[in-house]
């Protein structure tokens, strides 16, 4: 039974590994690395929770092809990301730029953290005060 489960798992992994079918030739190792870096940072506009490296959609295939062509033409990562952003918006970037429209995305975790921190500090601080009050009162009672 355990063996069967293992085999099934192995088969599932094989399927995942096949997600990207085509292979491209690059002039250098750096170009190939850049290619994988970029396709793993671009979101597929059609199948929204996958990168274009991950996705089988025809649109992703086209976008990978464009990335490959542009890398071969010597374009930088910034140029390629700008090209995609110009067409599909910030949405295609898995690492969205820090600009007013995205402030809530970038800063809301920090703000929530600060709010919680403030609440905790306020509560703990107050408890100390009440403890002191009580011990004072106890001392007083003893004194009497």
């Amino acid at each position, binding site marked *: 039974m355990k063996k069967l489960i293992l085999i099934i798992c192995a088969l599932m992994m094989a399927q995942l590994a096949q997600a990207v079918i085509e292979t491209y030739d690059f002039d250098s190792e750096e170009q190939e690395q850049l290619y994988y870096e970029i396709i793993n940072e671009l979101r597929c*506009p*059609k199948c929204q929770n996958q990168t274009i490296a991950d996705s089988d959609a025809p*649109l992703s295939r*086209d976008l990978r092809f464009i990335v490959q062509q542009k890398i071969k033409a010597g374009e930088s990562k910034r140029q390629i990301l700008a090209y995609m*952003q*110009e*067409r*599909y*918006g910030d*949405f295609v970037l898995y690492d969205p730029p820090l600009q007013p429209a995205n402030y809530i995305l970038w800063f809301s975790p920090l703000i929530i953290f600060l709010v919680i921190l403030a609440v905790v500090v306020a509560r703990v601080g107050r408890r100390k005060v009440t403890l002191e009050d009580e011990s004072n009162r106890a001392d007083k009672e003893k004194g009497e």
Partner: protein
Amino acid sequence: MANKKVIITSIPIVIFTALVVVFWFSLGNDPTELPSQRIGKEVPEFRLSNLHNAEEFFTNQDLPNKPFLLNVWATWCVSCHVEHPYLVRFANQYPIPIIGLNYKDERVDALKYLQKGGDPYLFSIADEQGTMGIDLGVYGAPETFLVDGNGVIHHRYVGVIDNRVWNTIILPKMKELDPNLEQLEAAE
């Protein structure tokens, strides 16, 4: 002190109500719908062949001088088959030019499709490689762009255009672009 208790106990209720309001208004939103980056910009430059004649080429100069619709479609696109009869009817009923962009399709299939289902298009551009589609930011056919007489894109609709979409979105927006359309009545 009693006041404070009231405030503290009401916090969860306030948060809950706020969430309900937010979720309620999000119900109508389609999260798969992306805003177009081409709004307010001109139709990207293109030079692509006529679907009906591979030897003849269209460029931006061939676009109409009055507001028109640019409809992105393909025979492999299932929703396009649903949309097609509507487009044929609207093309007959309204003086609004519709230009077809046949996106990543086989020319033979596309021509057969138009022959069988009717041709609603003023002319059809063949985007065999999908280059213009990508320049337009197309991610799911059918998509329809509302373009003014100067070739500037004003709106994009993603999805099937039926009577409801035509009457509530396309027609009102086209009337804004072209005052001559003001008298036109809704489709039935």
